[in-house]
C-alpha cells in the first residue's frame, strides 16, 4: 500500500537526540520512546492494511480526527511490533465509541485507564499474556499495545496529565493495561462470545477502569465459598456510590474450583449480583450517599451492579496461587461509560 505520510518532520543528529527531542516536546509517558522514522511507521501501516490518511476515530468533545498515520507513529514510539497495530487500532476505535464516552473517563478526577481485554486467536498468535503475572511486566505485547493507546490519547487527543487528564491519583495501568483471556484453559464461554461475537473472531473489549484489586481464598473448595470472599470485598468497594461495570478476573485455582462445582459464567454473574448489595442505610452511614438514614433504608437493598451482565467475567492469571482480582469500572453507571467490544480487523487485501 503506497501512501504519503503527511506529518511534520524533525531532523536530529542521532538516536540519543531523537529520544531527547521526544522528551523535550512532551511526547512521552515518562519512559523513553522509540524514534518514529518513516520506514518504521510505514511498516506499522502495512501490517494493518491501512492508508495513512484513513480516519479511525473522531473524538467529539475535542473535535479531533484520529488518523491511521498518527496511531502508527505512536505505536512505533510505544515499542509495538507491526503485527500489534490492528489491536491498537481496535482499541482506539473502542475508546472513541459514544458508549465509551471518551471525555468523562479520560478527563475525570476518578483517574481511570483503558483496560483492554483481548479475545480470540490473535491473542495466542501475538503471545498476549493471559497467565502468570497477568498485570505485571515481561510481555512486549501487553506492555506496548496499551502504551500505544495511552500515547495516542496524549499526543493526538491531547489528554495530558494535569491539563485534560485530571486524575487525582491515576494508577499504574495508565501506562499500559492489556490482558488476554486464557481461552485455552478456561472451562467457560469466552468474554467476546458472551458479548455476541464468534469464537474465531478476535476482539478487544475496553473498559474505563480503576486499578485491579487482588483477593485471596485458599480455604474453600466450592464456588459459593470462593466467591463469597470477593463479594465481601466488592460490596465494600462501592467507590463513588454509582453502579459502573466491574471485571472479575478468575485465575487458575479459583477457576478450577468454580468450574469443578459446575458453575458457568452466568452462574457467577448471578451470584455476585445477588451478594454484593448494600442497604441504603449502610451506604448513607458510610457517607457515600447523602441524606439522613430513614427507617426503610435498613431493609432497602441497592445492588452494586445495575444489572447482572455488568459483571464481565474473565478467566486469566497464573495457575498457582489462590488469588484472583476484580476491577472496578469508572463512573456513575451506564450513562457515564460502558465497556465496548470491537473486532480486530485484518484489512490487508
Amino acid at each position, binding site marked *: 500500500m503506497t501512501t504519503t505520510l503527511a*506529518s511534520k518532520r524533525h531532523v536530529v543528529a542521532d538516536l540519543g537526540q531523537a529520544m531527547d527531542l521526544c522528551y523535550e516536546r512532551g511526547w512521552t509517558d515518562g519512559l523513553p520512546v522509540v524514534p518514529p522514522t518513516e520506514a518504521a511507521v510505514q511498516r506499522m501501516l502495512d501490517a494493518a492494511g491501512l492508508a495513512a490518511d484513513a480516519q479511525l476515530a473522531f473524538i467529539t468533545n475535542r473535535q479531533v480526527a484520529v488518523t491511521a498515520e498518527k496511531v502508527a507513529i505512536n505505536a512505533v514510539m510505544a515499542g509495538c511490533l507491526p503485527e500489534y497495530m490492528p489491536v491498537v487500532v481496535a482499541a482506539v476505535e473502542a475508546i472513541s465509541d459514544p458508549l465509551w464516552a471518551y471525555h468523562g473517563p479520560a478527563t475525570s478526577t476518578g483517574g481511570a485507564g483503558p483496560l483492554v481485554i483481548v479475545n480470540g486467536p490473535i491473542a495466542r498468535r501475538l503471545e498476549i499474556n493471559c497467565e502468570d503475572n497477568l498485570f505485571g511486566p515481561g510481555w512486549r505485547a501487553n506492555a506496548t499495545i496499551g502504551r500505544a493507546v495511552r500515547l495516542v490519547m496524549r*499526543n493526538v487527543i491531547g489528554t495530558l496529565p494535569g491539563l485534560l487528564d485530571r486524575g487525582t491519583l491515576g494508577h499504574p495501568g495508565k501506562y499500559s493495561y492489556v490482558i488476554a483471556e486464557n481461552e485455552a484453559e478456561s472451562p467457560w464461554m469466552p468474554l467476546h462470545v458472551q458479548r455476541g461475537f464468534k469464537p474465531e473472531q478476535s476482539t478487544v473489549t475496553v473498559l474505563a477502569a480503576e486499578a485491579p484489586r487482588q483477593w485471596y481464598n485458599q480455604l474453600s473448595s466450592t464456588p459459593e465459598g470462593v466467591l463469597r470472599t470477593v463479594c465481601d470485598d466488592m460490596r465494600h468497594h462501592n467507590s463513588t456510590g454509582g453502579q459502573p461495570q466491574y471485571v472479575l478476573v478468575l485465575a487458575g485455582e479459583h477457576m478450577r474450583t468454580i468450574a469443578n462445582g459446575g458453575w458457568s459464567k452466568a452462574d457467577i454473574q448471578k451470584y455476585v449480583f445477588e451478594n454484593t448489595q448494600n442497604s441504603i442505610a449502610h451506604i448513607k452511614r458510610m457517607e457515600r450517599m447523602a441524606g439522613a438514614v430513614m427507617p426503610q433504608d435498613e431493609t432497602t437493598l441497592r445492588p452494586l451492579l445495575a444489572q447482572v451482565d455488568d459483571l464481565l467475567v474473565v478467566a486469566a492469571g497464573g495457575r498457582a496461587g489462590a488469588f484472583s482480582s476484580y476491577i472496578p469500572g469508572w463512573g456513575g453507571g451506564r450513562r*457515564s461509560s460502558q465497556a465496548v467490544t470491537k473486532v480486530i480487523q485484518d484489512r490487508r487485501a
Partner: protein
Amino acid sequence: MAPIEILDPTVEPRQQPLTYVPRPDSLKGKRVGLVENTKFNSDRLLHRIGEVLINEYGAADCKMWRKHNASVPAHAEIIEEAKRSVDVIVAGIGD
C-alpha cells in the same frame, strides 16, 4: 552517523474560527439559565447563585436544567430550550 528524521506524533492544530458570544454589559432584566451537573449540592449552589443574580444584579428570573450526568455535555434538549428561553447561562462543575 547519518542524521535521523522522525515524524511528529501530535496533531497539528486545525485553523478553525472560535468566537465567544459577547458578554452582556449588565444582567439587568436578563433571563438566566442554570445548568446543574448532578453532583451533590450543585443544585443548591446554583440556586443560591441564581438568587444573587436576581437580587443583587437585577436579573429577571432563573431557570435550571439538569444534565444526564456530570461527565457528559448538556444534552440537545437543554441546548435547544436554553436558546429559546434564556439570555445567559451559568454552568460549571463542582466536586
